[in-house]
């Protein structure tokens, strides 16, 4: 990493750190001041879980790709939060969600998340069982994992399916299978190719960074909403950061270099 990149990275991290810390404090004091935009997928999620409780069938949560300990660790944690919110709701009915994961490092996280959700509802007794988390060692064979999911939908007689993590075009396979079995689907992938597939094939697709907002939409936790506010602040900062150089270049071209001369006059410049 060269020195310029290093300085920029440190600045971005410090800015993000400050934004998150301050936003969480603001939201804790005035939660109602930050309303969320309606989300189709997050509105449907409790309904899918509710349908599962009524029919006594589990919701399948399939997490592909993101492992703990690598660069995708934040995505694994984001998926864990979504799993928690689903399991917390499903715990009322006594039918725990079934999880399929492709990375072994996510196993402890998956068990921990399901346990925490059931503990929060005082429904832990009789829950812990290897049946709830399936590790499918697909490695870099994403198609194998997708094929496994088509089988799991039928084997577990799933009431709904939520796909989280890093799916590419292979996401079409389980979504197609779910459609044929009339299983409602929610796709929350952070892969752009996967998001396009989800838009076409899933009943409810989360686009952009929507997959990261489950805590804010489904939970009562102020810190999650604080994270959303901080992300909005960072997004505005990115837009401003993109607009300033664009305006500078365009303005300089239109005015025949007047802006450059003005800036050089104000701040000085090399001869």
């Amino acid at each position, binding site marked *: 990493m060269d020195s310029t990149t290093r300085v920029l990275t440190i600045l971005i991290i410090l800015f993000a750190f400050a934004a998150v*810390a301050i936003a969480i404090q603001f939201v804790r004091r005035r939660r109602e001041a930050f309303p969320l935009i309606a989300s189709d997928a997050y509105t449907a999620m409790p309904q899918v879980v509710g349908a599962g409780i009524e029919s006594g069938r589990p919701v399948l949560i399939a997490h592909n790709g993101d492992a703990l300990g690598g660069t995708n660790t934040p995505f694994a944690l984001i998926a864990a939060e979504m799993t928690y919110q689903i399991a917390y709701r499903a715990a009322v009915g006594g039918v725990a969600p079934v999880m399929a994961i492709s990375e072994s490092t996510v196993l402890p996280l998956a068990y921990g998340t399901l346990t925490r959700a059931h503990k929060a509802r005082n429904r832990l007794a009789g829950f812990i069982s290897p049946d709830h988390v399936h590790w499918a060692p697909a490695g870099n064979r994403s198609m194998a994992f997708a094929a496994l999911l088509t089988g799991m939908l039928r084997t577990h007689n799933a009431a709904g399916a939520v796909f989280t993590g890093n799916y590419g075009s292979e996401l079409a396979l389980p979504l*197609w299978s779910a459609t044929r079995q009339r299983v409602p689907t929610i796709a929350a992938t952070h892969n752009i190719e996967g998001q396009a597939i989800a838009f076409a094939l899933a009943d409810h697709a989360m686009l952009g*960074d929507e997959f990261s907002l489950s805590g804010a939409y489904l939970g009562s936790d102020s*810190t999650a909403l604080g994270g959303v506010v901080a992300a909005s602040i960072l997004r505005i900062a990115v837009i401003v950061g993109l607009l300033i150089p664009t305006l500078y270049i365009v303005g300089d071209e239109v005015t025949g270099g007047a802006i450059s001369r003005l800036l050089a006059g104000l701040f000085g410049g090399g001869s």
Partner: protein
Amino acid sequence: MGRIATLIASALAISIGLIVLVGLLTGSTLAGLTGLVLQIAVITAAMTVLIGVLNLLILHLRRIFGRERGIIYSITLVVSFLLVIALYVLDQPDARRVVLEDVAVSIESTLSALLVFALVYGAYRLMRRRVTWAAVLFTAIVLITLLGAVPLSQLALLEQLRAWILAVPASAGARGLLLGIALAAIIAGMRVLIGQERAVRE
């Protein structure tokens, strides 16, 4: 007792996160410590593979002995597992290649071919479910992209349009989405560092 354990876990996660971050960014004396922490992470990841294998076997053996639904898949998995181990023990690289590569790759290729039908069905379903501007735009772009890839001189205009769509709006949209996704990852990381992530604080 549970509260103390949570506090220790939070303190460990925050301190290790900060050590790794500072070590990677500054390359200072913390770099040695960062390397050690990363090595521990790699060893832990290797251990989870063993846990995963045990989990997988317990799960499927329970299914077989309990004669549960999908028993045929469980039998196939356990037999394949034992077969691969036996081939390693007997040192049969050719047979191993057949099981691990030839069979798996052929099946994956077949499934990949099915994707085309899934996508076409997706476009059809999207329009049948509800005709919105987004659905019409999506279908139109799909058609232009597919037709633009056909090497016919009569479709040269579509080829140019396809190239423009891929280079300008698709590229800009993808970068915008990637920025949003990167921000989501940064926020998730920051929440771990300040001890607000559920996996760390509960």
